[in-house]
């Protein structure tokens, strides 16, 4: 116990004195201690479990940690990350301030904001002290340090980049007839009733779609960077709900039922029930093609004016039982090796958070040699990224959505 | 519709199991007569009743005809054969009152409701159970239950009676009474009766032809 306390004091003391890139001798010694402490630990990693590719990738990560560090990784599959947040909240309420049941959470946005607000996270400043932080593209990817307008303060470590991308099957629909902005989409839906839908909020992708529409339809985008309670929410969000009122009668099942999440939309695209689907990962279609889940005629497109983009992270609850193991895991996730495999559509296809310029040459070459797949847009084709609104918007939009559309007739 | 009967003619009925003949009967039971089939259990005697009633287990093979009032009843559904069945258990319907059991059995052409009730009450009086209409069958003694079962089968106006060891569960006193009651009622209504039993006393009391089956060779 004494050893444990001294280690954590040392690590946080070190973090105060550290500059972000250079690792001095003492720091690598501290890291060695973390590695030593982590050996034999079991890390309960709470992560959304609705995608086979991602689950397999996590399985691979676990195997690696077991082989290299003797750490057991257990993937607690969630259908909603909020469940993990609620578990930590409940533990805090019950006074369980150590030996908590969750060691690492796959997180971003409103869940991060809520945990940070309630002091439910370990940190600050552990993320930038991870040895592999040196490769992270802090400079060109602002969403790595600002998550939905909230500074991460080193309380979460980046894992991957997300960008809203749309898909269609070129065997059935022509690429040049695909919508290029939300107004186009509305018109397309009116001409093709029953062939578009979005996952039912509060599903993460479904809510993200609402934010995409909000950003495109709202008069003054800058208002969205403020907390929703600081502005006239009803007035600001009115264009969004006007839009949805027009869209819904032409949705799949006339908006009386919605797809559960984005993998179910892929299934519906394969079956020909939907003609346009979307996901937060540009390689979704390519990897689904590689897995025989979609025909190889599926292609990606995006809105030239821009689509929502963000970063997803891992964070450690304040009462985590295996903090050392969780740190090792977070560090492994931003290793070039792990990031390379993640970007490979054969496994997942999720864009990297690393900067190619910071990588050793041969690693960077491996990244550029990746075959991103026939249906994946190149990074320069992805178009501009919209900033996420302040996390408070998500909750109020979801609430209003539920009261307007949660009961269909 | 006549409820009288011209007798029950069992015309060359053979019942076998897996190709082995269990019994063969060829006999005319006139009204008021009793034919007793006697034999140990497993001899197939109850199977004969099942065949005549129309409930033969598909495992058995049977041939031959049975005539009642000049109709070959093996050709019609059990519902149209007008067989009156009595088993060793009274099998009263526990969720109905005693009277309910009777009106359930009564032909539907007896109406209205009050008439149905008064006939049922009369039938109960006939078997010595005056005032039992509203009683719960479960509160009756074994002998009383047997008499309700008899009243129930008689009120359904059967064309003949099929008795499957109906007395074997009664104690000696009740047994004699019950036998008398059954045979007397059958006579009064001119019904042919087919009784199967393993009990020699029953067979003798029936006072009619006895066919022994099973270990002995079947014969008259």
């Amino acid at each position, binding site marked *: 116990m004494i050893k444990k306390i001294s280690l954590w004091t040392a690590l946080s003391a070190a973090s105060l004195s550290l500059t972000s890139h250079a690792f001095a001798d003492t720091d690598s010694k501290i890291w060695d201690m973390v590695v030593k402490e982590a050996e034999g630990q079991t890390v309960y990693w709470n992560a959304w479990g609705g995608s086979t590719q991602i689950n397999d990738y996590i399985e691979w990560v676990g195997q690696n940690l077991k082989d290299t560090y003797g750490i057991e990784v257990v993937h*607690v*599959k969630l259908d909603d990350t909020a469940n993990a947040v609620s578990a930590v909240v*409940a533990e805090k*309420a019950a006074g369980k301030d150590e030996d908590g*049941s969750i060691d690492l959470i796959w997180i971003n946005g409103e869940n991060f904001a809520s945990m940070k607000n309630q002091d439910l996270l370990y940190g600050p400043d552990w993320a930038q002290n991870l040895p592999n932080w040196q490769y992270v593209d802090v400079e060109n990817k602002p969403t790595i340090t600002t998550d939905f307008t909230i500074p991460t303060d080193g309380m979460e470590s980046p894992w991957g980049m997300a960008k809203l991308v749309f898909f269609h099957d070129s065997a059935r629909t022509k690429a040049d007839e695909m919508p290029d902005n939300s107004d186009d989409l509305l018109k397309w839906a009116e001409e093709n009733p029953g062939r578009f839908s979005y996952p039912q909020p509060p599903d993460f992708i479904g809510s993200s779609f609402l934010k995409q529409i909000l950003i495109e339809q709202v008069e003054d985008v800058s208002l969205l960077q403020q907390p929703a309670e600081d502005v006239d929410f009803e007035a600001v969000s009115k264009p969004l709900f006007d839009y949805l009122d027009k869209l819904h009668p032409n949705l799949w099942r006339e908006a009386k*039922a*919605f797809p559960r999440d984005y993998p179910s939309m892929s299934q519906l695209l394969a079956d*020909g029930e939907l003609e346009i689907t979307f996901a937060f990962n540009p390689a979704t279609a390519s990897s689904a093609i590689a897995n025989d889940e979609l025909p190889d005629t599926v292609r990606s497109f995006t809105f030239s004016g821009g689509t929502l983009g963000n970063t997803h992270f891992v964070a450690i609850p304040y009462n985590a039982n295996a903090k050392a193991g969780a740190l090792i895991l977070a560090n492994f996730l931003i290793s070039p090796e792990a990031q390379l495999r993640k970007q490979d559509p054969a496994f997942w296809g999720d864009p990297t958070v690393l900067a190619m310029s910071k990588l050793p040459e041969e690693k960077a070459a491996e990244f550029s040699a990746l075959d991103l797949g026939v249906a994946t847009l190149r990074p320069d084709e992805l178009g501009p990224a919209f900033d996420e609104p302040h996390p408070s918007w998500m909750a109020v939009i979801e609430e209003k959505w539920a009261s307007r559309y949660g009961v269909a007739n | 519709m006549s409820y009288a009967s011209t007798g029950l003619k069992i015309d060359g009925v053979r019942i076998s199991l897996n190709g082995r003949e269990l019994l063969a009967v060829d006999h005319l039971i006139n009204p008021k007569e009793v034919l007793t089939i006697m034999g140990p259990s497993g001899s197939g005697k109850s199977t004969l009743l099942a065949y005549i009633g129309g409930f033969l287990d598909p495992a058995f093979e049977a041939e031959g005809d049975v005539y009642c009032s000049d109709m070959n009843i093996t050709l019609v559904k059990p519902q149209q054969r007008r067989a009156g069945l009595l088993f060793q258990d009274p099998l009263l319907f526990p969720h109905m009152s005693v009277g309910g059991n009777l009106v*359930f059995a009564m032909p539907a052409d007896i109406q209205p409701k009050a008439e149905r009730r008064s006939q049922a009450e009369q039938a109960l009086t006939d078997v010595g159970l005056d005032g039992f209409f509203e009683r719960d069958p479960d509160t009756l003694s074994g002998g009383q239950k047997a008499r309700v079962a008899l009243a129930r089968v008689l009120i*359904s106006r059967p064309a003949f009676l099929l008795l499957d060891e109906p007395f074997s569960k009664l104690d000696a006193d009740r047994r004699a009474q019950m036998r008398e009651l059954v045979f007397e009622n059958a006579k009064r209504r001119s019904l042919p009766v087919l009784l199967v039993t393993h009990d020699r006393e029953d067979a003798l009391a029936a006072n009619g032809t006895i066919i022994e089956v099973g270990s002995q060779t079947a014969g008259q």
Partner: protein
Amino acid sequence: MLRYSPLIALLVLAVPVLCGLAGTVLPAFGYLPALGGEDFSLLPFGELFSQTGIWRSISQSFFIGIISTALSVMLVAGFVSAWYGTRLFKKVQYLVSPLLSVPHAAAAFGFAFMIAPSGFFARLFSPWLTGWERPLDLLIVNDQLGLALIAGLVVKEVPFLLLVTLAALPQIAAIKSSHLTQSLGYGRMAGFLLSTWPSVYRQIRLPIFAVIAYASANVDMAIILGPATPYTLPVRLVGWMNDPDLKMRFMACAGACVQIAVTAFALLVWILIERFTGAASRSLAAKGNRYTHDWGFRVTASVLMTASALIVFGGLLVLALWSVSGLWQFPNTLPNTLSFKNWMRALPGLSQPLITTIIIGGASVAISIIISLACLAREQQTGRNGGNRALLLLYLPLLVPQIGFLFGLQLLLLSVNAIASWTALILVHVVFVLPYVFLSLSAPWRAFDKRYDSIGAALGSSNWRIFWRIRTPMLLRAILAACAVGFAVSIGQYLPTLLIGAGRFPTITTEAVALGSGGNRRIIGIYAFMQMMLPFIGFLLASTLPALIFRNRRGITGL
């Protein structure tokens, strides 16, 4: 030791349920100090009833519970009355029985894929007959009236009700009664329904109540098949219970109380329906009409029964096919390619949940069988079987909606730091496994010819020796069958595993529902297949082990 066994059973069954209920009711009225609720108030209920569409959710749960149960009972009553004692009956019975062990979630997935607009039926007839090149945009699964959920519940509950009916029939000499009523001139169905069914019904009444409780409060089937705008009440409750906003838990508990009330109300309405149909049946019986022209009804009953079994089987088979399919687009009836890739990828992730499932199932069955045997042995000693009160106790966990006490139990366990422990999880499984194990073991145990015990005793054997050397071997088949039933029940538990395991103990079933929400039919196929195989292996062992152990004893194996 034996004398305490009924007490232990009481503790194991009643304490979690009652404590859980208390743990649900108190927060519902605002009291839960651990989460900052110090004062009693009605606020949680106020908040609950201000939720959008809450009355719709409530009425959905009620109607779905009543209607699905009524249809199931009608189907079973119709089929049994039309065909009991025939060869067709035996055949259908063999067809339907295995479905009892299919977990609800697996059955729901299979059913959903059969009837969806892009499902197997549509594919069978498209495009050559229907002309559909693409699936129609029809709301079939997740429809707003809950018809898909009702149908799913019916096909899953019918096997259960049929089997409890079958167990009841021999006790009331149904065959002879049926002969009797036919001789009285009644049509087969009318005769059976008017004369025999009321006695059968009395014996299957508690199981029917359990079906109402399940149907009105279930979560796993409702997520898959039920309406989504809004969800049924229980599904919404689970969502609120898991919300990061702790205040939602007070509302969730208030909702759980409402759910209990909804289920209680459904039971009450059912009892009224019983009264009405009972009176109607008595008056029909007294009229004396014979209703002999029932051929159409008989055929309909057998067709519906067979179809309901086949659709579940078909769904499961097609899911198994999905698990090995490559690209399989509408309207292709069969996959373009087959591959084991899905299995190869899923296998590493399967092993842990599989082991957890087996440990929880094995342990809860072991505990349940020991308690059941001890209670039965005690019953034999004292000659008292506890009567209706004991039966009601056994049914308690099946009659109270799971949500009603699991929420409270979760909060209680959380406050004593016992959440997500093996012990808590296994014990909560025992709550649901024990009733089934006891019920399936008690009938053969009580029917055991006591003269064997007398012979043993006359030969100088102690009670203990009689138990081990006479009863247990002779009843081994029944004991193992009870174990297999219990194991199947444990495998099927979704909500208890999720709530009490706090997600830390993924089992095949929790994984299936979590992944199933992702709509990936290949993965659903794999998990549903595993969900089916585990109970099947259990039943296989239960039926082959006695035959192996007593291979030279025809009297026991019946071979």
